[in-house]
């Protein structure tokens, strides 16, 4: 053929024929994967047919690639070589090979699959529509070859050229891809995979395979879109095509490399180009691995798993201290922990009560087990509510919300975690009661505000956490919980950001703590299931208002009544004693300060 025809052949082969053939390979590969599952029964003959189609399509793909790489064999001056036109023999070879796809497909479509088992019926539908798709892809390849030869109505005994063309464009625009039947009983932890390919059919096939593996996928159809998506979302893996319009895969790798994003984001390069220069360039730029088309699904699966496994190992390191979602992001960009910055956070301190007393009574080994047991539960509550475990200091746990990643609802999350601690404590208290001879109790303080977050340890021994007044105050509030005989106290700064309908609470008092100038409102939060809470909290708050307005007698009498029904309500007892004190001292307006000074740390 002459150079013009050759160029057309190359274009159509690259853009269309190879794509549909790869779709055959992959649809078929996916079906083969599914038939590996013993719960889907497929006659042996059908399996062999699938294997034939799979092998033939791969062989055909390689054949075309070889043809494309040897233009010298096919480009001649047509006048010189009339009888044995190379395009004709090429066309013959291609059509002959396509027969090995068409034939088995038609046999498979005649087969009746057994339908006894559950899921089998569903599989039968997938199977039929997939095989039909494979046949349609092969038909499309025949049509493309016909177009290339400029055949006018030569397949006319079947269809007219126009209807062929419609067919080609239809199949390309709305691919009838069926949902894969899930064959894994327990899908692996789903990963987020970005599939970057300019060809829709390729994208869909890859996405389908990823879904089949139990992952979630998103698409990008060129390099620019890929970069935008990678910057906006944290992916676990990128499957990157090389030949793309606008910005090709190598340019994408360059850019990712420049932005330092490749260190922890595995990229698998997929391409028809397999000149070793390209591969080396991709790997040097930081791609994790390389797969050439047509993609062998078994190999792809192995590489994807290897990439994700490596990444998960890193994440596991961080998931000791960070909830999974944040661990993922930290594993991607660990340097985010070193960058000190100001952030809006909620800080929680939780203290295990009576630690010193119990330490005196119990053997150290038991004390350690007890503390570890309790800390385990407390830590779970933190991580389950997307909090960061900042530190354990003896009998105290410190947690934070709002950093390293922004959490607009950090106050809510912190309070939920704190409540979960309170609610899970009775079980562990019952477990340890025989050993300790006393209940296990905690005191929790939560405060919200600005803090400096970053590495608060040293370069040698990193410790990620918050620093500043917000933190100090949270610690003091925790200390106040003991004095106020409450399990869970939050400051006004935290409380004001909560949805009052979500939590049962009461305003306890306004306090002033050592070394902190401003007075702080404290609220108590209790489990929604607490008995008679509405009555108790309303009556307490009325008494508090009376007290703060110097109506001490009224406050004392209200509290007296309240204590008849709730004799062990610590805050009521305290307020009562303060009201009585004011009465005894007969304090004047100038003397009276409704703000309670809290001593100690």
């Amino acid at each position, binding site marked *: 053929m002459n150079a013009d025809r050759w160029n057309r052949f190359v274009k159509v082969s690259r853009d269309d024929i190879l794509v549909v053939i790869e779709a055959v390979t992959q649809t078929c590969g996916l079906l083969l994967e599914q038939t590996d599952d013993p719960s889907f029964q497929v006659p042996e003959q059908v399996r062999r047919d699938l294997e034939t189609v799979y092998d033939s399509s791969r062989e055909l793909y390689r054949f075309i690639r070889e043809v494309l790489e040897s233009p010298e064999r096919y480009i001649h001056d047509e006048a010189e070589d009339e009888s044995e036109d190379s395009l004709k*023999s090429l066309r013959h070879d291609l059509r*002959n090979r396509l*027969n090995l796809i068409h034939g088995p497909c038609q046999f498979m479509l005649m087969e009746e699959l057994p339908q006894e088992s559950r899921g089998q019926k569903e599989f039968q539908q997938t199977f039929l529509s997939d095989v039909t798709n494979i046949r349609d892809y092969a038909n499309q390849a025949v049509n493309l070859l016909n177009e290339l030869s400029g055949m006018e109505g030569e397949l006319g005994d079947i269809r007219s050229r126009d209807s062929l063309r419609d067919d080609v464009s239809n199949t390309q625009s709305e691919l009838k891809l069926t949902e894969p039947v899930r064959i894994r009983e327990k899908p692996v932890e789903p990963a987020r995979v970005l599939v970057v390919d300019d060809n829709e059919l390729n994208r869909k096939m890859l996405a389908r395979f990823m879904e089949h593996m139990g992952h979630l996928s998103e698409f990008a159809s060129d390099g620019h879109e890929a970069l935008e998506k990678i910057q906006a979302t944290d992916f676990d893996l990128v499957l990157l095509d090389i030949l793309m319009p606008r910005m090709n895969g190598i340019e994408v790798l360059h850019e990712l490399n420049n932005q330092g994003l490749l260190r922890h984001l595995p990229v698998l390069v997929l391409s028809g180009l397999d000149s070793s220069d390209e591969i080396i360039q991709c790997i040097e730029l930081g791609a994790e691995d390389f797969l050439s088309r047509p993609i062998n699904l078994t190999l792809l699966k192995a590489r994807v798993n290897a990439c994700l496994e490596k990444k998960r190992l890193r994440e596991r390191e961080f998931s000791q201290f960070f909830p999974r979602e944040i661990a993922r992001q930290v594993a991607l960009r660990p340097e985010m922990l070193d960058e000190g910055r100001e952030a809006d956070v909620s800080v929680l301190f939780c203290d295990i009560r009576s630690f010193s007393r119990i330490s005196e009574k119990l053997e150290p080994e038991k004390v350690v087990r007890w503390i570890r047991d309790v800390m385990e539960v407390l830590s779970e509550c933190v991580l389950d509510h997307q909090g960061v475990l900042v530190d354990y200091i003896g009998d105290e746990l410190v947690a934070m919300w709002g950093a390293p990643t922004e959490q607009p609802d950090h106050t809510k999350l912190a309070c939920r975690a704190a409540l979960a601690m309170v609610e899970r404590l009775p079980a562990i208290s019952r477990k340890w009661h025989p050993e300790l001879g006393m209940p296990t109790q905690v005191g929790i303080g939560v405060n919200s505000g600005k803090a400096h977050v970053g590495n608060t340890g040293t370069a040698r021994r990193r410790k990620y956490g918050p620093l500043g007044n917000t933190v100090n105050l949270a610690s003091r509030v925790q200390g106040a919980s003991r004095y106020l005989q409450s399990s869970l106290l939050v400051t006004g700064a935290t409380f004001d950001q909560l949805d009052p309908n979500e939590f049962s609470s009461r305003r306890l008092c306004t306090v002033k703590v050592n070394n902190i100038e401003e007075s702080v409102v404290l609220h108590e939060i209790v489990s929604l299931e607490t008995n008679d809470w509405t009555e108790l909290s309303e009556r307490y708050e009325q008494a508090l208002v009376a007290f703060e307005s110097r109506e001490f007698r009224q406050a004392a009498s209200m509290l007296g009544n309240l204590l008849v029904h709730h004799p062990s309500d610590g805050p009521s007892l305290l307020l009562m004693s303060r009201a009585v004190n004011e009465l005894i001292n007969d304090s004047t307006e100038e003397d009276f300060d409704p703000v309670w000074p809290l001593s100690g740390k």
Partner: protein
Amino acid sequence: MANILIVEDDETNVKLLQRLLTMKGYQFSVATNQKDAVEAARREMPDLILMDIQMPEEPGGKVSATAGIEAIRELKSDQQTSSVPIIATSAHDLPEQRNRFKEAGCDDIQSKPYTDFNELLETIERNLKGTSAP
């Protein structure tokens, strides 16, 4: 039941045809080159021949793009075999190529790939009944 001679050099294609013909209850024999095809036709007198075009001229020989055309000519010019219907089955399907098969004397043409088995089976049935395509 009708006996069909499959002339085809590609093993997988042979298997495909065998499966299809067996399924439909035909008997068949196979030849994989021009020389064997002509001999088998004379010896067995099949009811129909499916004739590939591009194949070796003799066992182990070089593949020729026209071996099938030669075989058709030979069989159609021999009184003994001239009435056996021959369907040219080829992936060569451009108009001028099809014309050459017809000039050689084939009764019908089925181009590869066989995108529709029913069509292939209909063509076989039609030629077995002696009513070749218009």
